[in-house]
């Protein structure tokens, strides 16, 4: 008996996994709004707008980390250019926000007026439509990833060479977006958003809706990814990671498998970027800087590769540490990040999840 697909997706998580996911969603969708809106501001249990934005932002990063885990942990392909796809999704949604920010409908975004442009460039057409922009958020990263990935994987570019090329790709894109003539606000990028779907971007309600959407998206991505890696596709993918030429002899064409997971990963990054921009209130080309993309790899390495939940943990640990460090010891953050990466690489090759498993195993052996 063939099991229907929906049932297979649902059964890719065990009961403990579903329980954890349910608790996470209950916290994000019920407890956080209550703590933010219902608890008075002077109470110790009040959750500030700052905290909500911070956690919302980190959930976007966690989404990127899961996307990175699919391609790196399971596909064995280290991308150091994932910041590009994140930024593309962010810019696509930012276009919509900029159109909503103008003083009246149909007005040009402020930076274009400043540049004395008389009309919208062609690629801005339709950017006042929410649906069109959501389409762009998915299609643009997918298209860029497909074209780049097709040529890279067809030429069998692998390992460190692939990583370097992705790094160059995001750097080139950053330089392009820095130019005012490109039509995306130059080095200032997009900011000063006002409305999203006619609601104020900064209102507590909008903030909570965006927060909830991000949480739901993160949960859905985890379920989808778990299904993906436990399907036959996932087994083929890890087999290609371990021995590509052997898989070719068996009759698989690695190109399409790599390309598929590469494009899926890029699309997830684009969605994360689109959720990030209205919460943080700004997108500029520095999101495409090589250092940002390297940081994504560090989150995954810290949490534990090929575990899916590890990258989420890694994104939270590193970014919470970052927001604490950059306030308390701003000048030491990069040293700490470097140290963290070295320690994890040398002593925790399986990341925090690997450490946890080891401890549980020891505990099990002792008992």
């Amino acid at each position, binding site marked *: 008996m063939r*099991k229907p*697909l929906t049932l297979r997706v649902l059964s890719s998580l065990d009961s403990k996994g579903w329980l954890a996911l349910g608790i996470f969603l209950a916290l994000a969708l019920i407890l956080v709004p209550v703590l933010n809106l219902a608890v008075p501001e002077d109470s110790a249990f009040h959750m500030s707008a700052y905290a909500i934005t911070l956690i919302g932002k980190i959930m976007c990063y966690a989404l990127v980390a899961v996307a990175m885990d699919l391609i790196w942990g399971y596909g064995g392909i280290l991308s150091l250019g994932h910041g590009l796809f994140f930024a593309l999704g962010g810019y696509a949604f930012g276009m919509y926000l900029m159109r909503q920010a103008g003083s009246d409908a149909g007005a040009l975004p402020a930076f274009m007026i400043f540049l004395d442009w008389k009309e919208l460039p062609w690629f801005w057409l339709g950017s006042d439509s929410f649906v069109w922009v959501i389409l762009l958020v998915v299609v643009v990263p997918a298209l860029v990833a497909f074209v780049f990935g097709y040529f890279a994987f067809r030429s069998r570019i692998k390992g460190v060479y692939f990583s370097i090329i992705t790094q160059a790709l995001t750097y080139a894109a950053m330089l392009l977006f820095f130019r005012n003539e490109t039509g995306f606000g130059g080095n200032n990028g997009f900011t000063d958003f006002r409305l999203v779907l006619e609601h104020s971007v900064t209102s507590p309600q909008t903030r909570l809706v965006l927060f909830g959407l991000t949480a739901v998206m993160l949960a859905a991505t985890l379920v989808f990814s778990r299904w993906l890696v436990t399907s036959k*596709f996932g*087994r083929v993918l890890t*087999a290609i990671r371990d*021995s590509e030429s052997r898989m070719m*002899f068996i*009759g698989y*064409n690695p190109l*399409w498998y790599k390309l598929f997971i590469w494009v899926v990963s890029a699309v997830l990054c684009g969605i994360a970027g689109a959720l990030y921009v209205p919460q943080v209130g700004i997108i500029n080309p520095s999101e495409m800087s090589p250092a940002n993309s390297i940081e994504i790899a560090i989150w995954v390495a810290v949490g534990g590769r090929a575990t899916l939940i590890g990258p989420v943990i890694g994104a939270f640990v590193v970014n919470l540490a970052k927001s604490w460090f950059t306030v308390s010891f701003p000048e030491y953050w990069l040293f700490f990040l470097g140290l963290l990466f070295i320690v994890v690489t040398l002593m925790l090759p399986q990341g925090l999840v690997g450490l946890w498993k080891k401890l549980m195993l020891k505990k099990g052996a002792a008992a």
Partner: protein
Amino acid sequence: MNAPNTTAEALLDGRPEGSDGADQMGHLVTGELDLSHGVALYLDDITVSFDGFRALNKLNLTIDAGELRCIIGPNGAGKTTMMDVITGKTRPDSGSAFFGQTMDLTRLTEPEIAHAGIGRKFQKPTIFENHSVFENLELAMKTDKRVWKSLLAWLAADERDRIAETLRLIRLDKEADRPAGLLSHGQKQWLEIGMLLMQEPKLLLLDEPVAGMTDDETMRTAELFVSLAGKHSLVVVEHDMAFIEKLGGKVTVLHEGSVLAEGNLATVQNDPRVIEVYLGR
């Protein structure tokens, strides 16, 4: 979506039943596997040179359908190069190689040849160590190997039966759920043979399949190969004479890229030219 796959399918299915390839001029690229003349593999006057060194020198070899053939020869005799030519890894400088009556191996790519029904086992077992024994066989199973099919793949009962059957054949049914990396060396060799069988090849090329096996494992492997002959054609490259004796098929001796002697093991072993090559003057 997947070019090599579709070509290979066209290769297997594109030609109407009963059409005879022999009456057409030139090399044939299309055609289904035709074993009607009882021959699985023809190598005719194959020459391969690497920088002036003739790895194969006008090699002629014919393997019958269902035959179990052993190939022996000193190092550098061209055994591995011969397998490379058959699997499409190396293109011959001259000569022709046919699989069945109609399939020109010199015109097909490696995946196409694999799909057409030639399976190869390398000297060093290359299995997927992180996957379970069962999953290794699942990955190797003959099926549609395109991305969408893999995404939606769900093992049917008959597919599970086939994997179980192969597991019994290679005596790994108790190890099915263990990671393949934990198997002993001999078991890894068997798993690789099992993976070959899952691809349902018509012709199996086995390069030193019992290297590193215990005597007991070697003998059981011989039994396995003898049981496979008939249904499949097997070409075994080995140095282990006890193993070859146990297989009991025809033996071909290669020397300097061409056939030196052919016949049963006793005849070949008593051939003065063979003795000279192996022992020197």
